């Protein structure tokens, strides 16, 4: 018979947090928000390095490029929000889902890659677009992903 043991390990984090003094939680969060905002330009620089890699990998036909592409797009999805570019982060997340699907089905048509790349390029400079235009761009990517999912399920 398999054995399952239930137990309550010591919660050292709770003990540390409960130590007297410390700082107000709301002050800690606002200070951290400020720090993240101050790092936005550096986050954008790091993200641009990944974008350059994405543009290069998207144009190549090297074997195994989807794995590299997935990692680079995932990096952008994580950094775009820190760089104050939430729509680009959203686009990158959708692209990640599309590549993830392709990694299981084995196929990702170049036109589907290209539309994602084009939208990411546009959303890198979001101030050029009105809210409705950015929403339309993202809806377009959702449509591409939904179509790929339907094709994979068929």
């Amino acid at each position, binding site marked *: 018979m398999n054995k399952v043991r239930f137990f309550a390990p010591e919660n050292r984090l709770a003990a540390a947090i409960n130590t*007297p003094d410390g700082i107000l939680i709301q002050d800690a969060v606002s200070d951290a*928000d*400020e720090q993240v905002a101050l790092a936005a330009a550096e986050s954008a620089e790091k993200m641009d390095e990944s974008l350059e890699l994405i543009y290069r990998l998207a144009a190549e036909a090297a074997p195994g490029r989807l794995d590299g592409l997935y990692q680079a797009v995932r990096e952008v999805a994580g*950094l775009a929000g820190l760089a104050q570019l939430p729509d680009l982060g959203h686009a990158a997340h959708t692209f990640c889902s599309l590549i993830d699907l392709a990694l299981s089905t084995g196929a990702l048509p170049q036109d589907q890659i290209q539309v994602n790349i084009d939208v990411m390029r546009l959303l890198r400079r979001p101030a050029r677009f009105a809210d409705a235009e950015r929403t339309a761009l993202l809806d377009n990517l959702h449509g591409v992903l939904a179509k790929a999912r339907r094709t994979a399920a068929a």
Partner: protein
Amino acid sequence: MEENPLNSRAASEHKISVGRINLDYASILLMDNAWGVEILARIFKSFGARRLHRAQSITDASSYLTQHQVDLIVAEAMIGGEDTFQFIRGLRQNAEAEHNRFAPVILLSAHSASEKVAQARDCGINFFVAKPISPKVVMKRVLWVAKNTRQCLETPTYAGPDRRFRNAPPPPGVADRRQINAYKVETTA
């Protein structure tokens, strides 16, 4: 009188507590790629943490944990192209390194590949946070993990926090896995 964050229902739900937090004495391991770990360090320094340790690879983290005790691990799900899931699973199942075996783990990820979802669920993390991270969400999860009273469990195939958030029986028509797998349940303090 100020509110204790660990007793605050709000802290674990939608609002940030108005209480205090003291991370002066908490030893925290941050695992991410170079820029990610820098951002995490800035956030935790703002939270008052002084004992921060940075690891930019699974090897660095493993090496650190064999020699030091930590109170919290905050880890990106993929570091340098390597999955963190296996590392966390190894940590939870390593009975020879008991000092960190059940240290709370908050896992960060910008996207979870479909084939990894089960691994993420079953590796023994305490909480999952979707990137992009925000200080407010990180704070909420730190408070939640500290307040958490879920028991841990250990079976031949899993070690970590009880994954059930509700104490509910199996859904209608689904057999109880404890009976299917013939588990003998033991509870220890």
